Each structure stands twice: as C-alpha cells, then as structure tokens.
C-alpha cells in the first residue's frame, strides 16, 4: 500500500511511459553526441626531445589546444620498443620520430596520411624531397618536420683548422693520431655504425655495399676495425643523448664528436664556445624526422584535431624556433616570415634563413640516408655490442 502523503504526485501510467520513452530518446541522442562534444583539447605527443618546443604557446594560439609532449631520447630502438611492445599509441595522438620508421611500423602501427584532409592546409607546399622518403609504395605516412645532414662538431683550435671551407675527412673521428683519446662517439648503433662503415669503405679497408644495412660479414669487418681503434685509445667516451653531446663538447672533454647541429648551437650560445658543426666533411649522414599518427587514433574521435596539429608542425610558428636551433624543415620561408612578424632580432631571422642554405650545401656532398630500422638490424646490433664490449 502506498502512503500518498510521502509518495508524491501520482503519475498516470500512460504519461509515465511517454516520459520514459522521451527520456530514453534524449539519453540515446546524448550518447551518440557525446564523443563529438568531448573531442580531445589536449594533444599528446611522444617524440625526440630536441624537436619539441620549449614553449608551446604558439601552438595554443594557433589551434586552441593544449600540448602535452613527452620527450624521449633519439634512439630508434627505444621508440620501436615503446610503439610495438608497450603500445603507447593508446596514450598518444602522434609520434615524432625518424623518417624510415614507416618501413617497419607503417602497416600495423601507423595510420596512412590523408593528404587531402582539409586541416592539412600546408601540405601542398611541402617539397617532394621531404615527402618522398615517407612513402611505402603508394601510401604516404607521416608529415615531415625537420631534416638535415649531420657531420661532426669540433673545436677548431684543438684540431688546428683555420679554413672553414677546407674539406675534412671522417678520419679525424675514427683513425687519427691527432685526435687519439679525444673523440666522442654516439652509442646509438644506427647513427654511428654506418658512419664508421662509410669510413671503412672509403679508406679501402673493406668494400661495403650498403653502409646502412650491413651484412654479417661487413658488420664484423667494421666492428673489427672499430675494436682495433678503440684498443688504440681513439675514443674518449661514448654518449647517449643530446645533453651528453653538449656536456662533452662544452667541457672540452672531447675535441670532436658525431653530434647534432643543435648541440653545437647550445654549446656556443649558452657556454660561450666556438665549436663548429662542420659543413665541409667528406660525407654526411642524411636524416629526417616526421610526425606519425598511431593506428589506435582511428578508434578515437579526435582525428581532425590531430590533423590540425600536424599542420602546425609545417608552419612558421614551429619551424622558426627550430631554425633558431640550427634545424631546417620543409617550409623555411614561412619560418623566416614568422620570425619577422614576431619582431625577432635580425640576426635570428638571418640565421633561420641561413640554416636552409647550409643544409642544401651539405646535400650536394656524397652521403647516405639514415635508416633507423635496417633489415639486418639484429646482426648489426650484435657486432656493435662486440665493439662496445671490447
């Protein structure tokens, strides 16, 4: 029996049913609308530490979104492990990593790029030289952000180099009495092993077909050469990350090391050094970085916002700070325009413009393209370990 004083007004059965139906309908619409309404306003990126912005305000201003960027070391192995084994695509909206990753990760771990997406307004002005290395067959993966050709950084006074136009050999890094015990070398196999292999090839020590993908016999020959030089005392230290490059050069712990150009910039600007990242070496290591969209993003509803983010990385607002750090991207004219609009100092604007020219000059020199995931990675890694362990 119902106590009418406490049970409230009686609702006729028919009205109750009507109300329930209407409520259910509203609920269903709500469920359907909810994902679109709750689109991510924070972009979550995982990538190379040196290519994140120190201040993401220009991104916020351009897109209205926040950025949570998780920096990582440049080692492709770490990125492979995180993407394949730890499946971090569930937690991130984009990866910023090496061009070439798509050859291994493309089909299963990256979404193909929709180059006609309306948010990707700057795509058409990206040069073919930047987009071509990101294709697997006819499928385009990734948006290029920066690229370049690396050599070594060194203290000119220590090596007695007065003429910056003089062509210097990688012999200084690998096989020189002049730099004995004064060389720093990256422990990242896919960076250092091909550089050493190219020297071994050029010096006629062993013929190598593809320095980025060594056969077992070639890898053993290169490791044997490296071990002999290591035992002769050629190398002072081996390093992992960007901060160590800066520290080794800045403290003059080494006279020369295979480093990124932005490490030299930091040493010179923050520590008052006069280090040179050489633009006239006998060969270079051509590389590029790009933003890839994880396959898991297809299951989310923020793909449009991700494309907005990709487009930002092609804009002057992103490329100008990169240029100031000594890195060149696909649209450096936009970078210069942005720097001018923002009233940056003239020397910064000039530097951003010059960066592109420097990279172009390096590209004219014989070089090989970096391969972060060579098919013979397992064999190469074992020989590299033999070199490190010796």
């Amino acid at each position, binding site marked *: 029996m119902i106590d009418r004083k406490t049970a409230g007004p009686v609702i006729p059965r028919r009205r109750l049913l009507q109300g329930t139906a209407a409520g259910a309908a509203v609920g269903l619409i709500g469920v359907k609308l909810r994902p679109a309404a709750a689109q991510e306003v924070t972009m979550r990126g995982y990538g190379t530490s040196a290519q994140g912005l120190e201040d993401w305000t220009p991104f916020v201003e351009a897109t209205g979104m926040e950025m949570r960027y998780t920096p990582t070391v440049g080692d492709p192995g770490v990125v492979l492990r995180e993407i394949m084994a730890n499946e971090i695509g569930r937690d991130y909206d984009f990866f910023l990593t090496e061009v070439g990753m798509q050859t291994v990760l493309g089909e299963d771990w990256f979404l193909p790029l929709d180059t006609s997406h309306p948010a990707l307004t700057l795509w058409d002005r990206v040069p073919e030289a930047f987009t071509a290395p990101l294709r697997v067959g006819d499928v385009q993966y990734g948006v290029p952000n920066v690229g370049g050709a690396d050599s070594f950084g060194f203290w000119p006074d220590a090596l007695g180099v007065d003429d910056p136009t003089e062509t210097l050999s990688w012999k200084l890094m690998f096989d020189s009495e002049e730099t004995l015990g004064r060389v720093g070398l990256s422990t990242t196999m896919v960076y250092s092993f091909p550089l050493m292999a190219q020297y071994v090839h050029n010096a006629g020590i062993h013929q190598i077909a593809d320095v980025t993908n060594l056969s077992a016999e070639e890898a053993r020959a290169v490791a044997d050469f490296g071990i002999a030089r290591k035992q002769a005392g050629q190398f*002072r230290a081996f390093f992992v990350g960007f901060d160590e490059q800066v520290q080794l050069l800045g403290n003059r712990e080494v006279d020369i090391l295979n480093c990124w150009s932005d490490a030299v910039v930091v040493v010179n600007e923050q520590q008052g050094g006069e280090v040179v990242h050489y633009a006239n070496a006998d060969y270079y290591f051509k590389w590029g970085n790009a933003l890839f969209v994880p396959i898991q993003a297809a299951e989310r509803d923020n793909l449009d916002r991700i494309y907005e983010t990709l487009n930002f990385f092609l804009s002057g607002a992103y490329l100008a700070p990169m240029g100031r750090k000594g890195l060149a991207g696909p649209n450096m004219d936009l970078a210069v325009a942005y720097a001018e609009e923002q009233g940056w100092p003239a020397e910064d604007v000039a530097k951003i413009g010059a960066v592109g020219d420097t990279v172009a000059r390096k590209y004219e020199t014989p070089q090989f393209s970096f391969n972060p995931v060579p098919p013979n990675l397992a064999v190469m890694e074992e020989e590299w370990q033999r070199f490190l362990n010796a």
Partner: protein
Amino acid sequence: MIRLRAAYHELAAGGWPVMLFVAAWTVLVVTPLALMLVYSLFRTQGFATDFTPGLETWRTFFDSGRWQVVVRTVRIGLTVTVVVMAISLPFAIWLAKGCRSASIRAALVTLITIPFFLDVASRTIVWRTLLGSEGAVNTLLGLVGIPPQAWLLYSEFAVHFGMVLVYFPTMVLPIMLVLTLIDDDLLEASGDLGASRWQTFTDVLLPLALPGVAAGVVFTMVPAMADVVVPQIMGGFNVNMLGNSVDAALDALKYPMAAALSSFVIAVLLVLLGLLALVLRRVGAGAALFRALDA
C-alpha cells in the same frame, strides 16, 4: 634425495605460514625466472621473437662478447663490495661502539642517510666536472706540474670510485645497526677473560655482526651489478656493464638475448652464493649466521 626430504620436513615444521611463503615465492619469483630461462631458448628474427626452441641466442651471446659484460659486471660488483666493506666495517664499528657522543653519532647517521634522498644521477654527475680533463682535480694537478690524468674519468677507476660513494651507506647502515644490538657486556667479558682486542674482534664482535655484514653485502653487490647510471656517467660506456647491455638488447627488441643475459647472471650469482655457503660452513658460520641475532 634424503636432503630434499629433510628440507621439506623442516619447512613443514614451520607450519602453514612457511608453506604459504614458499608457495608464493615459487609462483611469484621462481616461475618467472624459469620462464626467463625458457625465453632465452627462443631467438629474434627481424623485429619479432621466433618461438622455435634452439641455442642460437646463446651462441650469439658468446660470439658477440656479451658474456664478457657479465664477467666484467660480476668482477666490478665484487671489487666494489670488497672496497666498500673495507671502508665501512671499521667505520661502522667505531660509530656503534667507539663513538661515545650520542649527538655526533646522530649527526653522522643523518649525514649517511642524506644521500638516499637524492637520486644517483644527481649525486654522481657532479663528479664529471670535478674529474674531467679540465676539471678541478686536473687543474690542481696542473698547478703542481702534473699533466692531466685521463683515467680519472670514463674509466674503470671512475666507475669503481662512483660506486664506492653510492654504495657506502648501504653497507654501513646494516652493519652499524646489528653492532648496536650487541651488548657491550659481552665485549667487556671477553676482555676480562683475557682475550686480546684482536681476539675480541675476531671471536666475538665479527661473528655477532655477520648478519649485518651479510645484509650489507647483498644491499651493495646486487644493486652495484644492476647499476646503469654510474657506469654510464662515470664510465662513458667505456665500461659496458650488464644493465647497459640488457637495455641495448631490449631497445633492439631482442627479448631472448635480454633473457639470456639475465639468466647467465643468475647462474653466476648462484655459483657465488654456493661458494659463500661453502666458506661459511667451513668457518662454522653457516646456520649460525642468523642465530647470532638471538644472542
């Protein structure tokens, strides 16, 4: 067989808590270790693990010199432990039994504890600027006409030096704590009965301190062997140790190789512990090790 049966009866005598612990330990610790050994019998093909059993990973383990990393790691771990022990034991004895001022003792214990609040990298990296080619030490040496000494950094010496500093507290504290539990009357009685100071040390103090020493050895040697930070910062990868090698294997998605490295280390540790047990049994300190705490 008889020994196993005796061990089982001894465990069973401990009742259900002991049996529960053994069961949990078997499931949570022993089984994963066994699985790790099994995993080392697989191999890496491209970027994937091939689950066909075989010995290829172990062959590569020896060919690539990774076994040398294990040997080097064990050698450095042992050397560091011995050096830290040689410094820590006299200091702990003085702190527990020789230092009569409670405030000084409290201050010193606090100083020893402070490093635990800082991460190892922060504590260690400062030595790079001090021991580097143009660091403070080499600058001072230069003032007295000695040329820069490269071996001060990025060398085995540097790795040992860094580890001794890092692991000194982990050795001192357990030894000191056990020593403070030893009744001073025992030491006085030993003297009253005509024992020399050396005899009191070897026959009374040291046996009673063995649980602390054993704990100190475990807390020092095991983390030293697994250390990644000090070898990288102080050794500059000139001294490649186990942690770095396992890291490199994992970065190349070579899980079977990482499993082989870890299995080999466990095998070496088991041999070392077996040797330790033999030595303790020979000096009659085997099972008595932990009974000392009952004294």
